[in-house]
């Protein structure tokens, strides 16, 4: 799929500041990152929250010994902290995002909105593949979508997940599956875990 973001493996890069954002199983990717170059730790600021599937590895993040590390209660509260931290981040700061697609997409959107070049942002996918989907009809976003189709958490229409991704919204597109024949809704299949 073409508009789908591409993910790699986090690599330490030279920089005066290292901003690390992770959720759930992303904690392991953060550990792998700093093990490649422990010297970045004293210039690192880590923001972490539990994953949508409940995975919470805050203890291992906290034990790394970064210059600063905070745990947020949810992705939205993490994004508030991120907005504040970004105000002080100098151009040339290295940004590392890891964990679920929803977290990385939203953090990337906020980082890019402040003009950080794409090249200074790295992403590594870990953990859940559940999707963040925008209903094209009511515009509401449903988090942690596992099945296809699924009911929109705002308007209740049954949506299928189109392979179309917006970085601006950090979301896939959901389209009503029974628009042509009302009530013809195929059984939900678990596509995203």
């Amino acid at each position, binding site marked *: *799929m*073409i*508009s*789908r973001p591409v993910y790699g493996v986090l690599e330490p890069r030279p920089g005066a500041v290292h901003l690390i954002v992770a959720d759930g199983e992303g904690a392991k990717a953060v550990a792998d990152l700093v093990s490649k170059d422990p010297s970045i730790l004293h210039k690192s600021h880590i923001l972490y929250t539990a994953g949508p599937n409940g995975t919470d590895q805050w203890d291992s993040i906290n034990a790394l010994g970064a210059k600063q590390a905070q745990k947020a209660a949810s992705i939205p509260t993490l994004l508030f902290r991120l907005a504040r931290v970004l105000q002080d981040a100098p151009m040339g700061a290295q940004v590392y995002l890891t964990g679920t697609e929803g977290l990385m997409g939203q953090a990337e959107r906020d980082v890019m909105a402040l003009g950080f070049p*794409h090249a200074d942002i790295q992403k590594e996918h870990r953990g859940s593949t559940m999707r963040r989907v*925008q209903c*094209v*009809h009511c*515009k509401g976003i449903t988090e942690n979508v596992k099945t296809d189709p699924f009911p929109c958490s705002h308007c209740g*229409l049954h949506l299928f997940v*189109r*392979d*179309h*991704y*917006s*970085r*601006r*919204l950090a979301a896939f*597109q959901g*389209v*009503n599956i029974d*628009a*042509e*024949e*009302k009530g013809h809704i195929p059984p939900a299949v678990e596509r995203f875990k």
Partner: protein
Amino acid sequence: MSLDFKYGFDDFFRDETYCDDFTYRNSPAAIRRFPFPFDRDDYMYSVNMEPHVAGRKGSVFEHTFDVDEHYLSEMRDRARVLASDPLRCQSLPHMTLAGWDLLELIMETKAREYPQWFSLAKDGNRWHWINRPLGIDQKFTFLDESTLPYGPMEYISRQTQGDFTLQDEREGTLWVDAGMVTTQADWSLDFNIGMNFHEWHAPVPLAHEKGIFDRALKFLMKLQQGSPVRRYNWTMTVNPLLDTAPETYPDWGHMRTALTPKNMGHMMHLRVELQTLYRLPRSNAICFDIRAYLGKFEELVTVPKWGRRLHRVVRDLHPDLAAYKGFLRNRDEMTQWLSQYDDGQPTSPGWWPED
């Protein structure tokens, strides 16, 4: 300040609807000039682009921006759609200059090509625009937004047939950062705004693999001011709905299940998009004009060559394209109906009716 239309319906400009009772139709003259998009008996995606230069008198290529008998009804339909969903027109903050470029391009061109309907007088930046069919007489200051009732892109595209998107060029690609989109074949400006050329084309089947989008983008990056280009795209629409938006798909999708052999000729429309692309002078943005023409099957088959050809194209189209264009479920019935108008005779190359 607002933009109040006084629709001047007359013998030429038809008073018709694109919703509810669907009174839209083409006059015999409009059928003859319909932009039939198939120059041969089969169809596959290609980098089909040619210079947008003046074509045959009377054809949709005669003028840069074709104004036809549906003009006023189409503008009324756009106003209706925007009233129900303002998100159909959006412009990111850095695109205002490109909006002025577009306004200038359309006003200058229409005043030159259709002096009976439009006029533009300039005294430095103080401009005076008259649109007689819509009853508009507007004095404003060019590049000063406060002197118009809408932003420049919205102001002029509420008076111009066709959807418009404005693409900013940066990082070696194009970004769709503004648009007026109320006559679209099932894609969402609100979802796509801010995407780049390859991202917004992601859902299209087969074309990426054929390298079509790589080549098309290369071509567009070289587009020069004053040398616009054009291409066709097409799909099928049940009922003359100009506005087939994904947003309202739950309202119109069921119409696709209402087709019968009896109503096919009247309800099924070939939807042709005449797409033109212009490099804009100040902003260096690219304007993409998507002008939709709707032709009923029963209208198109009055031209024998088109009847034969449409039958063959629909019958043989790659199933992935028929599915993407949304008519796979009706394809067999469409082929069946069209086959009455195909006597198996050879067709001449090119799309003109009389050749």
